[in-house]
Every structure is written in structure tokens, then in C-alpha cells.
């Protein structure tokens, strides 16, 4: 592999507090401080004038649908969507068919990753068998098979006792437990946020209290056991407050927010467009602002997309019957730049931190930095370039995105994994 010489980029690496124009070097798949004169001569040179060089983005919440739902997405197409979005490490959720609740399925996923993935795809396993919330999955075997965390994402472990045992047990292996926080007894039939808009639209409401109850429960269990719980896709202002107090008290909880929860509110549902239907649902402007404030002060640790592909024919239904979830990987960076940097005045390095070093830290992944010695996972992007996102023309196998057809500002130009350019894709 030739060495890599990225010239004249604005290098933004939150881990090393670096933010300035300069050159970036890689050799043998790793970031190096400099190259020898001979190395420079042979190196692949990329002129990055006007571009930002950031660590490859890290997304700890994606759905790649393999095995079993490969009509929606595969590890091949999902990882290409990741690469196109500047992501070099993604963590995929275990709600596949069959569910990733056993070492065999994890092995299957890892084989597909080795064969098909263009970025680093790391699997998670279920907390409970079939994510049904009844019996603990073989968490030790899952760990041995290579999962980086366990979660019943999409389903929330309802039993407090089972959740307590899960986090205690997983802690023995140093495995983080990620939870989709939803008290399902409060959300039967619910398809959107409960509030003024659900009243107007006549849709069944999912009260933010159903999230807050489980976030509180998780804070209590984490505090009681000392085990780490990561709260997925926080959508509620009250949950942000609960987490803020918990963190101030030193409880080992972390949390994420999605691009869609910082970009949209439930007002977007006025036309019953299923591309605004996801779980947890879009909430109010006050919630949206609270999530941004939570990202600003560190209450929320990172951005994750919850990239959730569904085919047109599955999504194109009556709102009540359409499945939850939207694409996120190919638009996340532009949305974060728009909402956090341009509108909410986050420093660029802060926004990048939320998509690189911090998510990596949540799960203890060796990713998210450009420090010498780190894997040469790099995202080069133009922070201003305006482009129209067409989900149909995108890399994902599905096109269920509320951003399709919209003009976005900020575009990924090159994605590099272990010193190799993976995006733009080589002609095949």
C-alpha cells in the first residue's frame, strides 16, 4: 500500500485539539507524523485545499439488515452508504433475521463484513434471546464471537430485574449495554409524539414520558450496579435533564442523539409522510432545542444516525402501517453542519468530536482520531459545498429519507479506511 500525503487540508482532530491547515500523512494504514523524502515521493497525494480533514466518522447505531432483510440493505450497500457519508466505523444493530442473539449469527455477519464491507462494520448482539425481553442471550459467547456491545434496539428490555442482571453480567466482559428507552406499556399503537400535533392529526401519541421512565430506570440501575448503560437516540427534553443530573452525580451513563431529532419536530408530520416516521418519534421544538443543548454541554455524548433502511413498497403505506425508521448515513454530516455548526454555533471541532472521538469512546472503540499511530481512517469534506441529495441515487439499497430532494451544505469528498481511499468508489 502506498503512503498517503494529504496536502493543505484544514486538519480538525478533537483528540489532539488540532485545528489548522496542514498536511496529513499515513503509512502502512496508520497515521504518521511525517514521511521521509523518499516516502513523500512515492506517496499517493491528495490535494485537500479548502477541505476539512477529520477523523473518519464513527456511527454506533446503524441497521444493515443482514442477515435476513437484505431486500432493505446489505452489509455491502450499507457500508457503501457509510463510506459515502464519511463514516469509517459503524456499529450495526442485532435486530436482523434471525436476530443476532447467538455466536453463529455474529460469525455470519463478520464473514459478510470481511467479504463485502468497504468500511469497518462492528456487530452488536442482543441482550435477550430474540430481543424478546424474556431470557438473557449468551452474552459471553457473543463477546467471544466479536460483538462490541449488546442491545435489544428497537425493543426495550421492559423487566427491571432482567435489565439489572444484563448490565451486571455484561460488565464482567467489559461489554457496554445500549438501550432503546421506551416503556412499551405506554406506547401501544403509538406512531408519533403525543402532543398538540398528534391531537390535530388524530394519530396515536407516544408520550415522551415513556422514554423518560426508562431513562430514569436505567440511571437508577446503573447507579445501583456501577455498570455502564448507553441510552440510544434520546428524543425528550426531560430525558436530557435526567441524564444531566445523573452525569453530575457521576453515574456511568452515556447517550446519543440522531440528526433527525436535532433537525425536525413533529410539525413535519402534517402531511403524514412516512419518511418522518421513526421510533422514538420526532418531538417538539422544546425537545429539539434541549437535545442540541445536551450535545453542547456534553450531557449527550455523541451523534448516531439510527440508519434504518426500508424499501419504498414497505414505507409507502398508510402512516399507521409504515415501518419506523429512516436513512441517515449519507446525510448526517451535512445535517450536523447545518444544525449544530451553522445554526447553533457549535465549533466545527466540537461537531466533529460528536461524530468521531466521542462515539468511539462510548463503546471503547480504537477509532475517531488522527493522532500518530492511529488507524488512517480519514474523512475529507467540503464544509460549504451545496448539493442536492437524491436518496434514489444514493448508495443505500433503500431510499427512505426525509432529506431526499433537499439541498444540503457540506459534502464528503473522500473517505479513507486504513490509508486506502474507499470513497469515491473505484470504477468496477
Amino acid at each position, binding site marked *: 500500500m502506498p503512503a498517503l500525503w494529504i496536502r493543505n487540508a484544514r486538519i480538525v482532530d478533537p483528540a489532539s485539539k488540532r485545528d489548522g491547515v496542514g498536511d496529513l500523512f499515513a503509512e502502512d494504514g496508520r497515521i504518521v507524523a511525517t514521511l521521509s523524502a523518499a516516502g513523500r515521493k512515492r506517496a499517493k497525494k491528495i490535494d485537500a485545499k479548502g477541505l476539512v480533514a477529520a477523523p473518519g466518522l464513527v456511527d454506533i447505531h446503524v441497521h444493515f439488515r443482514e442477515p435476513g432483510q437484505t431486500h432493505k440493505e446489505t452489509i455491502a450497500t450499507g457500508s457503501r452508504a457509510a463510506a459515502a457519508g464519511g463514516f469509517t466505523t459503524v456499529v450495526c444493530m442485532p435486530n436482523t433475521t434471525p436476530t443476532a442473539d447467538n455466536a453463529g449469527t455474529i460469525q455470519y455477519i463478520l464473514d459478510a463484513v470481511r467479504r463485502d464491507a468497504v468500511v469497518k462494520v462492528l456487530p452488536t448482539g442482543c441482550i435477550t434471546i430474540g430481543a424478546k425481553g424474556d431470557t438473557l442471550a449468551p452474552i459471553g459467547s457473543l463477546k467471544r464471537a466479536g460483538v462490541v456491545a449488546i442491545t435489544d434496539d428497537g425493543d426495550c428490555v421492559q423487566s427491571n430485574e432482567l435489565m439489572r442482571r444484563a448490565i451486571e453480567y455484561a460488565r464482567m466482559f467489559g461489554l457496554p449495554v445500549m438501550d432503546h428507552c421506551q416503556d412499551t406499556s405506554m406506547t*401501544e399503537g403509538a406512531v408519533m409524539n403525543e402532543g398538540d400535533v398528534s391531537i390535530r*392529526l*388524530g*394519530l396515536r401519541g407516544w408520550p415522551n414520558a415513556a422514554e423518560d421512565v426508562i431513562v430514569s430506570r436505567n440511571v437508577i440501575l446503573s447507579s445501583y450496579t456501577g455498570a455502564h448503560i448507553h441510552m440510544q437516540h434520546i428524543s425528550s427534553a426531560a430525558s436530557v435533564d435526567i441524564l444531566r443530573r445523573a452525569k453530575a452525580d457521576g453515574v456511568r451513563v452515556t447517550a446519543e442523539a440522531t440528526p433527525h431529532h436535532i433537525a425536525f419536530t413533529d410539525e413535519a408530520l402534517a402531511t*403524514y409522510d412516512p419518511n418522518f416516521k421513526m421510533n422514538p418519534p420526532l418531538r417538539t421544538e422544546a425537545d429539539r432545542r434541549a437535545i442540541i443543548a445536551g450535545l453542547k454541554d456534553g450531557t449527550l455524548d455523541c451523534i448516531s444516525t439510527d440508519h434504518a433502511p426500508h424499501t419504498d*413498497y414497505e414505507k*409507502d403505506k*398508510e402512516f*399507521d402501517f409504515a415501518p419506523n425508521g429512516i436513512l441517515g448515513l449519507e446525510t448526517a454530516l451535512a445535517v450536523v453542519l447545518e444544525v449544530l455548526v451553522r445554526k447553533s454555533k457549535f465549533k466545527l471541532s466540537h461537531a466533529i468530536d460528536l461524530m468521531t472521538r466521542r462515539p468511539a469512546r462510548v463503546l471503547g472503540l480504537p477509532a475517531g482520531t488522527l493522532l500518530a499511530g492511529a488507524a488512517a481512517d480519514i474523512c475529507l469534506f467540503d464544509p460549504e459545498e451545496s448539493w442536492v441529495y437524491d436518496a434514489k441515487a444514493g448508495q443505500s439499497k433503500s431510499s427512505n429519507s426525509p432529506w431526499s430532494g433537499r439541498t444540503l451544505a457540506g459534502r464528503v469528498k473522500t473517505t479513507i479506511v486504513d490509508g486506502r481511499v474507499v470513497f469515491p468508489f473505484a470504477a468496477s
Partner: protein
Amino acid sequence: MTWTRRHLITIEELSLPEIEQIHATASAFKKILQRNVKKVPALRGKTIVNLFLEPSTRTRMAFDMAAKRLSADVIAFDAASSSTQKGETLRDTAENIQALNADMIVIRHAAAGSPLYLSKILDIPVINAGDGSHEHPTQGLLDTFTMKEHLGSLKGRKVAILGDILFSRVARSNIHALTKMGAKVTLVGPSTLVPHGFTTLGAEVSHDLKSALADADVVMLLRIQHERQGHRHFPSLGEYTSMFGLNKTRASWLRPHAIIMHPGPINRGVEIDSELADGPRSVILEQVTNGIAIRMAVLYLCAGHQPEHVIASTE
């Protein structure tokens, strides 16, 4: 003013003049319905499909009757024997109906937003006959039409809507129609079924039956919709009746001329005493009759006709 809408999806989107146009057209059709020959040729040669994907008695029959009075051919789509049972999507069902050269679709669906969805897919007019808990525009139109017949202008009139508001499309359509017409709407019932959020629609919310009924010109009762409630929102039907059922004593709090309405189906002895349902103040069956004229007006206008034509023919 020219009628321009091809679809009737909600009352929320209608202007007051549009509501008045529908009422005036319905009024003309009502006169025709009192004639010996009750049929007009307005929609001769047109085919209307009644796509009812949720059970309905009154609304379906009234749309059927209205279409036939307008000389349209009517095809009833029976959800139980249709392809939806075999997994066909709503889009495919609707596109097939259009491909069969239907001229108009009347849709009743358990999912809110379905008529809007169809109106974006299809080139033919779509009439909402009730979508989930969202809207039931022709019901709101016939209810306000009936109120006007008894009370004249609704400006400043006080209408109490009593019962299961949360899950009621009838309530939502009436709130929109009544507030546009200048009436004062009070929603009343148990706090779990009448959440405070309804004030954002311009109605008042009350859990005190006496104050809500005092001085009301109209009380509209709504059925407790067991089929839409995942859980019980109140302890029991018995407790509901004891707290909120309309009985003689409570009806005496109304103004002397006040009317009692109900969109049906009635649960006698639950939300209303049987005697009151049949009593002199009850206009429940008038609502049903007016439902035909309203639906004739809606079908007629959305098919592209103008109100003045039928109005002139009856003057």
C-alpha cells in the same frame, strides 16, 4: 365564488365560504329529496367507488344513497372479501380502482391520513368518509347543517361536545367547522379522553359537566369507542355513565331550546338515556337524513359542478 376543490379531505382546510357553499348546495338537494322524484341526473354516467375499509352503517348507506340520487353508479368495496385481506397495499387497491375507470373514491379507513395519501396518488377526486381519529368532514358538515336548521346562524352559539373526544374524528371535524362558523365549542368528558391539548384547536376543555352544559344551545354526544382504546381510559362504562352520561336531570341544565345530537351508533344507557335519545330535543335521526343531502352536495361539487346550478334549479 367558484368551487375549486376536487377532494374533500378535512374541514380544517376548508374556508368558511366553502363550508357555506356546501351547506347551500345541500339545502337545495334537501328540497329535491322532498320531491316525488328524488333523483337528479347530475352524475349520470359516473362511477363512484365506496372504499370502506372499516365498518360503517350510516355513512356508507348515506354515501350510497347520495350517489344514487345523483344518478351515479355505485360500487361498494367490501374489505372483507377484497385483496386487502391478501396483503394488497392501499396504493395498489386504489390504483386498481382508478384503472377500472372509477370517477371518484369515497374512502373510510382506520388509519388517519389515508384519504390525503390517496389524493396524492390518484387523479380522481377522493372524499374522506372518516379516517381513524382524524376527521370525518361530511359528518361535521351535516352536523353544522342540522344545527343551522334549528338555531339559524351559529355565531356565538355554545356547543358542548361530550364524550370520547381523544379518539373522535367527529369531534375534530366539528371543532374545525364550528370554530370557523363562530360558535363556541366546549369539549367535556373524563380528563383521559378530553386532554387539555384540544385547546390548541380553539375549543375549551372542561371536566365539569354542569358548567359545560349550562347555557349550551347544542349538546353533541359521542360514543365511547372501545375499538380505538388500547386500554381503558376510565374505570368502567358504569362509572362513565354515572359521571358523564346524559340523563334527564343533566339535560335540564341545557337552554330550553337546546338540541341533542349524536353521530351514531348510540350506546343507549351509556352516553345517553334511551328516553332522551328518542325525546323531542333529539335531532339524531334528522342528522341521518341531512347526511344524504350533505353527501350529495359534496359528491356534486367535487365532481366539478358549481353550487349555483342546483340552487337555481330549486328556486
